[in-house]
């Protein structure tokens, strides 16, 4: 039934519509971010779990030099092993019609035209390669799309030094390559890196692996731990050149996806919490103000017999309507954004399909959370209204009490004009509200900052990597180490100006009970093309004796300079040697252990070998050099710095605009909510005062100074505090994002700081303009006729 109080409620909601909408939008922002993150977290988790289950994704991955196939039987007998799938993997260089850059590819075998036991393929198009046709391949979807390959197309490949024409018969996805990353790269490169599946016999023949395997997948049962199985497996494979088993958690594709899911979880909690807190504060202020102006109304209602509860319920309904409006807007926005983000994820993650999951329970939970925040925010003001004795409520609230505060005494050196004095007193009369307004502005600034600083950081990271660390034009990775004398042959090529060799060896580093699998790199000294850098991005020289560790790795091993590190080499003679730690250095990407090339080769008991060659080439000769490198036997992969950088900035630019827009929008919603409400309430509270001043001969501009001066003070305090707060939040985020893959550096450019301030200022100007319009239209006569 529509009671008089309901009518009052609707009319007042309409009267306050600007403020109601501003608060509802803040709530909506929180709800939308939460829902968007939760929907995607849940959808991606579910999609991945189902994909893994349907395609028998392995728990353990191991690569080795070569083992006869009967060894697979021994692996199957390891306690805890449920299923074993042995296979042949290899590397190839590809050539696609109309694309001149070198392309590297990983080849994976499938048994006799059938699905493998583990890591089964999802067939997007066409069929699996047939055992009777050795040239048939299935291609990973990312590569097929990048080159517009269809079943029936032909690509040329060099496998193990031999040219071969391959016919694409199918386009597939694999749970092993949800995130398709070239090994050793920072970013996906769908054009220059592909994964191909071939019939086992055909691949084994091409790789000289008949009757043998060099990769094995294992599924572990529930009764045993993965770590135990890996221990066993490593022992079995040691004599076959095993480089150590990887758990699923360390598998590259799985790892990247897990990191993203972790970020979604943070988003689902931290951002909404900020939004809801701001909404709580706004409800408190707006409903508090409404009740202050309606003391006489409350008195009359009580005099006529409305109970305390009826009064409380009336104002509570107001808060709840705002909350529900926010909830509805936020839910719609959240679902829409959730879909958008889901589609964006699907561009990076190669799932057969996204199971978009929306659970009704979330809405119930979100409703409860939102209503609780709204209740908490408005309760103090409502409680005061309900407990007001009618006779007291009948009297006007009386002139507001002001004091000369400490701040003003501190400012007494300055000669303040009366309007400036009014600003200072107004702000210090309600320090709590002023403080919260400042915090609100600060949070808005911080949210934009946190959203956008990641781009600064990633840019710095990439700049560090490509401008400081890797100064070569091309990095050539060899299948097997060669004598460094081979480099002299390369330098004779007219297109190559300079060559530098490196050696990298898979190792396990051991200190006490801590172990870490990584690569030990032998670097020439002095190096000219690729360096190890410190935290200032300056190259550090590799000490003559001992090993240099990334600090993240040293921490992980709990080891310091001067300590002795045990190095278990995972290839060749599998030596175990003791090396002193010469020092540590800060790197942003990856973790590494570095020695001088000669020192490394001495430790390995080998001659002057290198397995990676870095080149500086003549830009004019670029294409022929690429062509010759592609044809060169023993070359596993060719990475061109230029293309890596280009593809990175392409990716960055695409996502940058979307994310910057989105973050700025979120910040603007908060900023507008806080500032608009602050100004409107200030105008309502001071309207009479300001009109009196207009009567006394103050101009609109002078009176505006009082109203907007308050706003300027709040902004001048709020924005710098927001910058500090943003730095703090970013620092916490950076710490939580530290992984073995990268350590995001904390850096913020002036542009990012300026952008956050600009968004807040634009919101402030919009609010200020609305207030200004009302100020100019103040009815001077009406104000003087009424009692406060």
């Amino acid at each position: 039934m529509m009671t008089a109080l309901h009518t009052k409620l609707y009319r007042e909601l309409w009267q306050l519509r600007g403020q109601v909408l501003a608060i509802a939008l803040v709530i909506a922002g929180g709800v939308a971010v939460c829902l968007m993150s939760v929907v995607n977290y849940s959808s991606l988790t579910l999609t991945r779990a189902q994909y893994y289950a349907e395609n028998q994704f392995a728990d353990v991955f191991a690569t080795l030099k070569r083992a006869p196939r009967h060894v697979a039987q021994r692996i199957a007998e390891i306690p805890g092993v449920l299923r074993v799938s042995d296979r042949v993997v290899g590397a190839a260089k590809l050539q696609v019609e109309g694309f001149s850059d070198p392309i590297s590819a990983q080849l994976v075998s499938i048994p006799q035209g059938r699905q493998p036991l583990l890591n089964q393929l999802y067939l997007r198009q066409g069929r699996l390669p047939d055992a009777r046709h050795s040239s048939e391949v299935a291609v990973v979807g990312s590569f097929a799309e990048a080159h517009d390959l269809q079943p029936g197309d032909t690509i040329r490949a060099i496998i193990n030094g031999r040219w071969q024409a391959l016919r694409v018969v199918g386009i597939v996805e694999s749970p092993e390559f949800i995130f398709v990353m070239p090994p050793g790269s920072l970013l996906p490169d769908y054009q220059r890196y592909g994964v191909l599946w071939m019939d086992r016999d055909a691949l084994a023949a091409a790789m000289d692996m008949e009757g043998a395997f060099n990769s094995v997948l294992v599924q572990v049962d529930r009764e045993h731990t993965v770590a135990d199985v890996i221990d066993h497996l490593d022992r079995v494979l040691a004599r076959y050149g095993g480089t150590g088993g990887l758990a699923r958690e360390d598998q590259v594709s799985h790892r990247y996806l897990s990191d993203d899911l972790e970020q979604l979880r943070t988003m689902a909690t931290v951002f909404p919490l900020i939004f809801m807190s701001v909404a709580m504060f706004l409800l408190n202020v707006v409903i508090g103000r409404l009740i202050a102006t309606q003391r006489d109304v409350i008195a009359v209602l009580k005099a006529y017999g409305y109970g305390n509860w009826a009064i409380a319920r009336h104002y509570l309904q107001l808060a709840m309507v705002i909350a529900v409006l926010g909830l509805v807007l936020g839910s719609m926005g959240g679902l829409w954004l959730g879909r958008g983000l889901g589609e964006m994820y699907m561009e990076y993650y190669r799932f057969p399909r996204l199971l978009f999951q929306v659970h009704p329970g979330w809405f119930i939970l979100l409703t409860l959370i939102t209503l609780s925040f709204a209740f908490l925010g408005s309760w103090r003001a409502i409680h005061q209204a309900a407990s007001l004795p009618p006779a007291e409520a009948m009297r006007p609230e009386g002139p507001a009490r002001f004091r000369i505060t400490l701040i003003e005494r501190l400012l007494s050196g300055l000669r303040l004009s009366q309007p400036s004095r009014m600003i200072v007193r107004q702000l210090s009369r309600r320090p709590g509200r002023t403080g919260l307004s400042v915090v609100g502005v600060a949070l808005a600034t911080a949210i934009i900052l946190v959203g956008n600083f990641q781009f600064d950081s990633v840019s710095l990271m990439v700049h560090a990597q490509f401008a400081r660390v890797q100064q070569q034009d091309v990095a050539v990775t060899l299948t097997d180490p060669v004598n460094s004398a081979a480099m002299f042959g390369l330098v004779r090529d007219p297109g190559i100006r300079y060559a530098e060799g490196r050696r990298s060896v898979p190792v396990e580093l051991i200190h006490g009970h801590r172990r870490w699998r990584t690569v030990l790199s032998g670097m020439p000294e002095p190096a000219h093309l690729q360096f190890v850098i410190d935290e200032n991005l300056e190259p550090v020289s590799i000490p003559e004796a001992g090993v240099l560790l990334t600090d993240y790795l040293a921490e992980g091993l709990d080891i310091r300079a001067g300590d002795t590190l045990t190095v278990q080499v995972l290839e060749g003679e599998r030596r175990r040697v003791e090396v002193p730690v010469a020092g540590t250095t800060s790197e942003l990407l990856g973790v590494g252990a570095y020695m001088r090339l000669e020192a490394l080769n001495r430790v390995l008991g080998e001659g002057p070998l290198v397995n990676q060659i870095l080149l500086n080439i003549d830009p004019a000769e670029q294409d022929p050099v690429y062509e010759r490198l592609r044809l060169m036997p023993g070359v596993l992969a060719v990475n061109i710095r230029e293309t890596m950088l280009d593809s990175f900035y392409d990716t960055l630019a695409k996502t940058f605009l979307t994310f910057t827009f989105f973050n700025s929008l979120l910040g603007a919603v908060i900023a507008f909510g806080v500032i608009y409400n602050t100004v409107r309430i200030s105008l309502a509270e001071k309207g009479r005062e300001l009109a009196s001043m207009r009567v006394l001969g103050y101009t609109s501009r002078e009176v505006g100074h009082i109203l907007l001066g308050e706003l300027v003070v709040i902004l001048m305090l709020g924005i710098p505090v927001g910058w500090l707060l943003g730095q703090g939040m970013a620092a916490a985020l950076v710490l939580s994002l530290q992984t073995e893959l990268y350590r995001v550096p904390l850096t913020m450019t002036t542009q990012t700081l300026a952008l956050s301030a600009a968004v807040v200022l634009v919101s402030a100007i919009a609010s200020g303009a609305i207030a200004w319009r009302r100020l100019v239209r103040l009815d001077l006569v009406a104000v003087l006729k009424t009692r406060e």
Partner: protein
Amino acid sequence: MPDNTVVFRTRGLTKTYRQGDVEVHALRGVDLELYDEEMVVLLGASGSGKSTLLNILGGLDVASSGEVEYRGLTLSRASDRELTRYRRDFVGFVFQFYNLIPSLTARENVAAVTEIAQAPMAPEEALALVGLSERMDHFPAQLSGGEQQRVAIARAIAKRPQVLLCDEPTGALDSATGILVLEALEKANRETGTTTVIITHNAAIAAMADRVITLSDGMISGEYRNPERQDPASLSW
């Protein structure tokens, strides 16, 4: 004694405004002259149009038709900016509800006006004139109604206005306090020679004026000159 210089002259002044769906004829043709240094009481019942007339004289409102002139300046055709300038330079206001600024002390409330005036007196001097020297650093919330109104008078006279317009200055006060306020107005008029217009519905106040104009239904219904101004202290109601 007032001289014969005309300060305000109105001719055929009318004011019509809409209140909801009703058209209110607040003024229906007022012809009026006010002279320099005189103390005028505008007497009228509620709704007689006296506040509307005062607001138009003070530059807060504009007439629907007719002419208002202040010392040769035509207020009836002035822009908003010119009216603000006029209020700032020439007019002092005192309102029924004081309209003090709660965040400023008594002294600072007066200073709010003297800061933008051409040749003001010191705020302390103005407050001394209304007998509030002792309470200059109190905020409005710490003052009684009568004290607040005296601060408002001090504020109005501190800028040495040409005219002082008072809208029911005693309307919100008990009679004893009201008399204190009227004494302050009388003293200000006597000592500064400011043309003072007091509007009231209280006929007892009329005795303190040089001239009394009565208004009813938006028209001047009577006018007389007191042979002698009464001391406000002798008034009672």
